[in-house]
Each structure stands twice: as structure tokens, then as C-alpha cells.
């Protein structure tokens, strides 16, 4: 498979196509939409090469806030300016919001029912397990390699937020500059 050429104005996706693609991504992604975004944009539509995707994804991670939301804006802005960003975002958020609003109404109405709360207790226990798996995957390369400032910062952030229950902005403002300074001087 050869890598697709850079998009010329002629084969740029239309706004409607961007909306549809992100709507499909949003509805296929259970427990995180980014792998599906990669599949759609790099493999199926070929709107971006793998390198371009990684670059846009790196920017999405670099920015604060939900990564996949940032990604939709970065992608949309690149291909269609402000309207493109708005359409990508609307595609990504619209269908899940409609679904979750229905669930919110059902929960407000039936959340006290014993059976539903038992089901949700099971789903929560499983969802927490999956979150632990994500943490373990992130932690493995950092903790199993040669230790530098990384694991220490991660442990301090954990203690500050989980054990001491300090407000996130305070923990962030103290730890992030220290961590960035270590990264700056590590060569």
C-alpha cells in the first residue's frame, strides 16, 4: 500500500463528509474514540497520512481538555477552517450527546430502581478496571525503564489528587513546571 498524496484542494473532504466521518467515529468508539478516528481518517478515508495523523494527535494531547475533541477541531480547522472545525466537532459530539441525554433522562427517572443500580454497579466496576488497564499501559514504559523524574512526578500527582484530595489546578500549577523543567534539562 503506497502512502496517499497530500490532499489537494480538489480532493479535500466536504464539510458534510467531515461531519459524517466524525459522527461514525463517535458512535463506534466505546471507551475512547481515538483509535476509531485513526482508522477512519488514515485507513478508510486517507485524508491524512499516518505521520500527519500522529502530528495532529500530538498537538491534541499537548493541549488541555478532551483529546479527541481537540483532535476534531485540529483536523477540521486544517481542512476547512472554522466551518470545518465546527462540523467535525458537531459530528463527534452530536450523536453521543443525543444518546447520553436520553440516558440522563432515564437515569433521573429510574436511577433509584434497585435492578438498574445493580447493573450500573457492575458496569462501574468493569469500567474502573479498564481505567486501571489504561494507567498500567501508560505507566509500564515509565516505571520499568531507567527511573528519571517521570515516575516521581506521577506518584506525587497521584498522592496530591487521590490521597490529599487537593484541587487539581493547585497540583497542576506546582508539578507541571517542575516536570517540564526536568524534561527541558534532560538531554
Amino acid at each position, binding site marked *: 500500500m503506497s502512502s496517499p498524496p497530500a490532499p489537494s484542494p480538489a480532493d479535500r473532504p466536504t464539510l458534510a463528509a467531515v461531519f459524517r466521518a466524525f459522527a461514525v467515529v463517535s458512535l463506534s468508539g466505546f471507551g475512547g474514540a481515538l483509535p476509531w478516528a485513526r482508522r477512519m481518517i488514515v485507513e478508510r478515508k486517507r485524508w491524512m497520512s499516518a505521520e500527519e495523523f500522529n502530528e495532529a494527535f500530538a498537538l491534541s494531547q499537548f493541549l488541555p481538555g478532551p483529546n479527541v475533541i481537540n483532535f476534531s477541531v485540529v483536523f477540521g480547522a486544517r481542512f476547512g477552517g472554522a466551518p470545518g472545525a465546527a462540523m467535525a466537532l458537531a459530528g463527534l459530539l452530536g450523536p453521543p450527546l443525543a444518546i447520553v441525554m436520553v440516558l440522563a433522562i432515564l437515569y433521573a427517572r429510574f436511577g433509584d430502581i434497585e435492578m438498574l443500580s*445493580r447493573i450500573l454497579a*457492575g458496569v462501574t466496576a468493569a469500567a474502573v478496571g479498564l481505567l486501571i488497564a489504561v494507567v498500567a499501559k501508560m505507566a509500564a514504559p515509565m516505571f520499568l525503564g531507567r527511573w528519571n523524574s517521570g515516575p516521581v512526578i506521577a506518584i506525587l500527582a497521584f498522592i496530591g489528587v487521590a490521597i490529599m*484530595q487537593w484541587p487539581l489546578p493547585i497540583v497542576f500549577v506546582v508539578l507541571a513546571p517542575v516536570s517540564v523543567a526536568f524534561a527541558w534539562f534532560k538531554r
Partner: protein
Amino acid sequence: MNDSPLITLFGYFALLSLFAVGGANAAIPEMHRIAVEVMHWMSDRQFADMFAIAQASPGPNVIIVTLIGYHVAGFAGAAVATVGMCGPTCVLAFFVARVWDRFKDARWRIAIQAGLVPVSLGLIGASAFVLARSADHNVYAGALTAITALVGFATRLNPLWLFAAGGLLGLTGWL
């Protein structure tokens, strides 16, 4: 703080979004702290339920803020919380995307990105801890969490199967 819950919701989530490095899951402990402990909008159990609903429904995990907003102030609350959590970072993303190529190889950019990884790891770890404390109220629930963590770590099984299994175990009274 203003009395209107809508302004409070918007202010909290707009501020939070700017510190949520590592995505929505990194901000869970702060949402929990505010919604359960500071503002008393909901019980620990209700917060855990909303996390479960947000995880098990399709789409970005950030829609937990929509559920919290709806719980606090109905449809207007849902809209305000969602816009608060997504709006500021979307505007930022839009403008940074246009100048990104200029500094994507800059040393400070690489240092910031590398430096934020351990912070977000610690925050997501804290999310797991806070949620496990709410969710794993007996040994069976704890065991289910542990097994799911192992399966999630070692395999690429679709999470939906694990949610379904968890829901079924809960329904049949194991948890």
C-alpha cells in the same frame, strides 16, 4: 461564587478544562471533589453511576460532564456544562492548530509535552483510585475490577463485552 447553578457549572468546567491534561479521565477526581464533596450535587454512588453511563455509551468520555450538568440543572445545565468543558479548549485548539507547524520542533514544545506525560499519568491513576473507592464496595466488585484490569491490559477485547459482563454480574446479584 454566584448563586445561579448554571454560572457555577460553567465556571467550574471551563476552569477545569484548561487543567485537564490527559483528557477527561484525568479530570475525574476534580469533578468528583466538586460535585460530591464541595457542592453536594450528588452522592458518591450517583457519581460512579454517571461515570459508568458515560464510559458505556458511545462517544468521547467527556460526556460525563453532560450527565453531571443535567443532574444539577436539567437541559440548560447539560448544555452549559458541556460548552464549559469543551468550549475554551476548542477555541484554543483552533488557534494553536494554525501556528503549530512553526514550533512543532521547538525545544520548549518538546519539553512541555514530555513533562506533561507524568502529570497526566498521575492524574489518571488518581481517577482510577477515586472511582475504585466509590465502585468497589465489596470483595466481588473489587475482584471484577481486578479481572477487568488484567483483561484490559493483556488483551484487545472490545470493552463493550466487559461492560456487558459487569452489568450481568451486577444484575444477577453478585456485586
